[in-house]
């Protein structure tokens, strides 16, 4: 009997293997396909462009130099650049030489009064384009070749769709397996009942008497228990103690919001920003350096990057199966970026601020009570503690949560164990030398420095 579930597990395992095989084979195949498409496309374009222009190199140059202000099919700080060469030639009658000159010295073109240069300058809020005198004509050719190439079909979407189907399968099969198990178990119970009945019937037919009263004669166990006062006493003491234990445990967690992960008005992923893109924490939380508050960044800080990052195109491998299961698709993230634009009042179309803002009401996660004073700059700048020490692996958090319990015991434990960071700090020089001599230690902990005194945090 016991073997049944095992057998099932084995079949389940095989099922998973098959699924995995299917999954990976499809994605491998689709990935093979994509570069092939790209290659075809570039080949087709290569005919049009000057001989020797390399769109692949152009792409690299474009991303390095141009992408901050230009996109291929979209107006950003500067105009969209897809087919810019042909467009200029057809619409404005400007040749490649004009482009060379413009890219290398836009300011000169504007001041010399070139009609189109001035027009473009005025059209884009008089934001002057950066000059690229270092780009050779060959480089510019490469870039133009890249802009002339039609954009490759989005690959990630295909992969995503395939993965979608694939990941759905194990979920269903699990349910089926469970259902089957339940069914089998039900059948077994029924069988047992039937067997029992049949046996009884046979016994009756054979004249065997089943001793029913035997069990009834002895005192039932609960009665025996109830009559034994000692046992009752021990049991009730045990009950009371365990109740007290759990009650204490429950009371002690009141107000401790470890793991608190509220839903925020904008789904902001620390994983993408701090993890995938490795943005330094203090780039956004800049006041942590100088203030008691780390500060939720104001929206203009977001716009430093998001002026040009208007959509989420995912990490190179595409969204993981887990992300997709949670609905974290590229489109999902892109809509979140749109929420930011709405809040900050950014008109994507015209690339300018409308002035209609809607401040974002973030849900505060780390709520230290008013009675406790905590200063970020003391810990971040003076002590040089990593943000992760208290806030946990933020770079892995898709949804931000409270990592530490933020209880007084937690603070104090750390103060007892952590040495004071005295490196290159003249303030500590004298006091550290004298105090460490007094306590007979090499390095002082924060506690020895006075970090356990009540008034240091409560006033």
């Amino acid at each position: 009997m016991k073997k049944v579930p095992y057998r099932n597990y084995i079949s389940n395992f095989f099922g998973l293997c098959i699924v995995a095989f299917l999954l990976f084979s499809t994605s491998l195949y689709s990935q093979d396909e994509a570069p092939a498409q790209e290659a075809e496309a570039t080949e087709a374009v290569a005919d049009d462009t000057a001989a020797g222009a390399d769109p692949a190199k152009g792409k690299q140059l474009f991303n390095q130099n141009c992408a901050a202000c230009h996109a291929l099919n979209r107006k950003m700080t500067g105009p969209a650049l897809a087919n810019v060469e042909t467009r200029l030639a057809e619409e404005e009658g400007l040749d490649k030489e004009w482009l060379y000159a413009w890219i290398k010295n836009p300011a000169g073109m504007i001041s010399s009064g070139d009609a189109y240069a001035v027009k473009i300058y005025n059209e884009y809020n008089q934001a002057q384009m950066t000059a690229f005198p270092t780009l050779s004509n060959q480089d510019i050719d490469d870039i133009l070749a890249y802009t002339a190439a039609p954009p490759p079909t989005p690959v990630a979407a295909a992969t995503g769709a395939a993965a979608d189907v694939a990941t759905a399968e194990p979920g269903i099969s699990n349910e089926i397996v469970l259902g089957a198990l339940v069914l089998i178990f039900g059948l077994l119970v029924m069988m047992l009942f039937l067997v029992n009945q049949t046996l009884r019937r046979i016994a009756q037919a054979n004249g065997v008497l089943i001793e029913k009263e035997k069990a009834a004669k002895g005192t039932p166990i609960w009665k025996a228990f109830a009559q034994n006062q000692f046992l009752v006493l021990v049991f009730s003491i045990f009950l009371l103690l365990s109740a007290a234990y759990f009650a204490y445990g429950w009371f002690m967690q009141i107000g401790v919001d470890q793991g608190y992960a509220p839903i925020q008005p904008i789904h902001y992923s620390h994983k993408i920003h701090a993890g995938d893109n490795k943005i330094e924490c203090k780039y956004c939380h800049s006041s942590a350096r100088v203030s008691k508050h780390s500060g939720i960044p104001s929206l203009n800080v977001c716009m430093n990057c998001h002026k040009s990052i208007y959509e989420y195109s995912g990490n190179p491998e595409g969204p993981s199966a887990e992300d997709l299961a949670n609905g974290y698709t590229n489109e999902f993230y892109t809509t979140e970026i749109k929420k930011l634009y709405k809040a900050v009042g950014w008109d994507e179309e015209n690339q300018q601020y409308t002035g209609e803002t809607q401040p974002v009401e973030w849900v505060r996660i780390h709520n230290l009570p008013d009675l406790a004073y905590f200063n970020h700059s003391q810990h971040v700048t003076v002590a040089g503690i990593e943000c992760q020490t208290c806030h946990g692996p933020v770079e892995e958090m898709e949804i931000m949560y409270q990592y530490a319990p933020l209880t007084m015991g937690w603070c104090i434990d750390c103060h007892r164990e952590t040495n004071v960071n005295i490196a290159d700090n003249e303030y500590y020089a004298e006091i550290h030398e004298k105090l460490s001599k007094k306590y007979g230690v090499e390095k002082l902990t924060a506690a020895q420095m006075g970090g356990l005194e009540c008034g240091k945090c409560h006033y």
Partner: protein
Amino acid sequence: MASNKKYWKNEAELNPNDSIVETLRQNEFPEEIPVDEFLGDKNNLSDSSTSRRDFLKYVGFSTAAASLAACEGPVRRSIPYVVKPEQIIPGVANYYATTIANGFDFASVLIKTREGRPIKLENNKEAHVLGGANARVQASVLSLYDSTRLQGPLFNGEPIDWDVLDAAVKAKLTTLENSNQQLVFLTQTYASPSTERLMEEYKAAYPGFVHIAYDAISEDAALNAFESKYGERALANYHFDKADLIVSFGADILADWQGGGFDSGYSKGRVPVEGKMSRHVQLEANLSLTGANADKRIPLKPSAQKKALASLYGMLNNSNVSTGLDESTLQALESIAQEIKKAGGKAVVVSGLDDEDAQNVVLAINEMLNSEAFDPTSPRFVRKGNNKALAQLITDMNSGKVGALIMDGVNPVFTLPNSAEFVTGLEKVGLSVAFSTNWTETTQAVQYTASANHYLESWGDAEFQKGHFSLMQPTIKELFDTRQFQHAALLWLGSDKAYYDFVRETWDTQILNGASWNQALHDGVFRSASLDESAPADQVVSNQEIATEAGPSIAPLTNAIKNLASAEESEVELTLYSKTGMGDGQQAGNPWLQEFPDPITRVTWDNYLTVSKADANSWGLVNENVANGGLDGSYVNITVGDTTLQNVPVIIQPGQAQGSIGLSLGYGREVGMKSEMKTGINAYSVYKNFQANQNASLEKVGGMHEFACIQLHNTLMGRGDIIKETTLEVFNTKDAAEWNSIVHVSLNHQEVPATTVDLWDSFDRSIGHHFNMSIDLNACTGCGACVMACNAENNIPVVGKTEVRRSRDMHWLRIDRYYSSEDTFEQDNIKKDEFSGAFESKTGFEQMEQAATNPQVAFQPVMCQHCNHAPCETVCPVAATSHSRQGQNHMAYNRCVGTRYCANNCPYKVRRFNWFLYNNNDEFDFHMNNDLGKMVLNPDVTVRSRGVIEKCSLCIQKTQKTILDAKRDGRMIKDGEFQTACSAACNNGAIVFGDINDGESKVSELKESDRMYHLLESVGTKPNVFYHVKVRNTNEA
């Protein structure tokens, strides 16, 4: 054995058959409980919407909800800026230099803002003139967040738009362009070059334009005297730090006399340096702050002061002036005259008498002396009020000559003694507009009310003293739909300039002379270059010139002397004064100021009539303490001319000149005030002809007034170790052990110094910081700026009059004021020591509870003494109060359970208990109970809850901030960086704070001083706050 005794409850029980006894025995309740009446009535029950089941449901639900709510933390939201201003970092304070010039208080100050909210005021140390904030200026930041402020312009009390107001004014102004009707601006004193220029522009545009400056409390006499002598309508400047002898005839030079701000100079001269300090003689009627600080104080009625001044002039001039003063006064005057002659140019004579003759005589004396402290060359412009012009205006208004009257910064309907005339005149004015921050008596009477900016929302400038300029800049955007007067005035003139541009223009063309505007704005103050170059030489020259001119100018003085000598005497002479906490009353709605204890009487939430003990006895007036300790006082009606003030409460004031009474101005506001703030009596109605001295009569009326006085015991009873003091002579000639002796106690039957005995082991505090605070009783004038700064810094709640009366005041820092019971404190000590036997000491001590008729006065700021061996710490059952290595006594509010053992065990009585939740409480209506008022709270200090003890923390939030800044910069801390709110607020140098482990710090130097002593040294608490023995420059004792 069980007792069979039967206890009779009633005689009737003797009769066993008494029916009543029987029924009583049967019934538990003598009266029938109406159970049936309620439950038996079906209708009644069915009418009730709540059935018993419902009731239980509600109880169950609310209990469950309450316990659930307690377990679940609330969801808190954080809303960051959309676009963060570059300068604002949440959690970091910004400071801006600005200027207060509200017509009564003038000062250059720094404003501390947090997240864009102004929350506290600091002194501007860059300022050479008026850089110190007094108590009212300190409190003015709260007036910004007054919930009764006007939120927009009004027409006859109905809200309107600014457009409507603009249109109405412009229309009227156009009609006035070519008319002979007057356009009158009735305003406060601005002392502002830009506003002056604006007024010039109006003058050019409108033929009938008149600008009248009006000071509620007038300095007209002094202004006229100065104007007639020096040709400029201004006030002479005084450098009291340069004076060796100060003689004052009723001038409250430490308070608001001639615009105030003289106290820091005064204090500089009062600290004995190399055996020298200034001597101060005060002749006055009321006991003023200045009189309390004087070395010699002669109580004189105002009329006698005038005579004395004339007589003194005669003595100095060697001419004979007969005044009819009594022999002892003349003798005292003679000795003063001798001293003045001896001091020569180091002496200065000042007068606060509202009398042009007196002011002329004083100017003449100072010139005659060639006084170094007297400076007419760079006069002050902080009072401009012109009473003659004002009287003319009222006449013109009543005769219909005024086409439009525009007022700013004044409340004449309240502050004018003849306000009824003014109001009837207002009705005949074509257009009346009043700029005001609040709904007042005046806004009620005019057509248009223009909601005005608070000074912290305004641009502006000021020239307090010739050549000393300051700038006013907004530190917050207008909270409401308000406008500052100058902005509106520019608009009505047809200019599209913002007032900022106008000020800048004035400065660029007239003041800066090429210097940087940004630098001036940053510093808040600017000294014109000519001052630095030529000032000292100039002054000497001009003084000499004046000295030579003094001869001929004496001639017209003979009349003045004659007038003064024959000053009319009256049986009861009233002196009106401005209280340290209330000033002219424009901030009467400020709860901090209402709860500010008067430095002299220590009474809060009131004004009152001060009378001398002898007069009180003869008029049957009493002060008495009732069962809960509260102080009660009799009522009187005062009549001045045809005006009677009803039910004025009486305080018996030691030191009050016999035959004189005192009453403070500024109280009694009613219109637009919260009910709690409607305190006191309006004394402006007896401020006839802007004369502070009036002849009055009074009669006692029934009833007793309940005061909220925070100091109920007024004398030291010979406890010389609380306030140690000595005379300059003793100080200079004797050993410190003699005048600053340490109390000896008996240990093992041996007399040893108390400081050597200790119950506790000492901790080593030699490493790191060790904070100490030094309080110099010589430099402290008792002005109370520190008290107000402490309130603002530490979120101290206002508790209201009834709570203060129950001794539940919450101030962390108090300034104790003591009167001597004999003529001097020294005599108190001697008297106490000479008691022999229980009987004599009993009666003797009873006598010593009463202050002397003209007592010596001493002030002593007391806050938590931060004892190294603190009695409070040893008795706290939950270790809520504990000690730090840095010398601060910590108080963890969240740990406190409110046993109040610590407060009982504190020998200094500095711990305060939160009897109520003073914030978010419907029972209180002060700033902490509305959203606007809460904006003043300091985010770095916890707002305490009900049931916990609180006390001075030595501003640990400030010391910690200083340490953190140094750590972040990786540097040592310089002396002077450590400050507390009180030490930073003290402009007189009385409170010095610092680290005594830093051997070079000022405080460690002060601790080594011979004058250093600890409060109640004999208790062995080893406090970290120490005092400096008060030295009096007296030759009598």
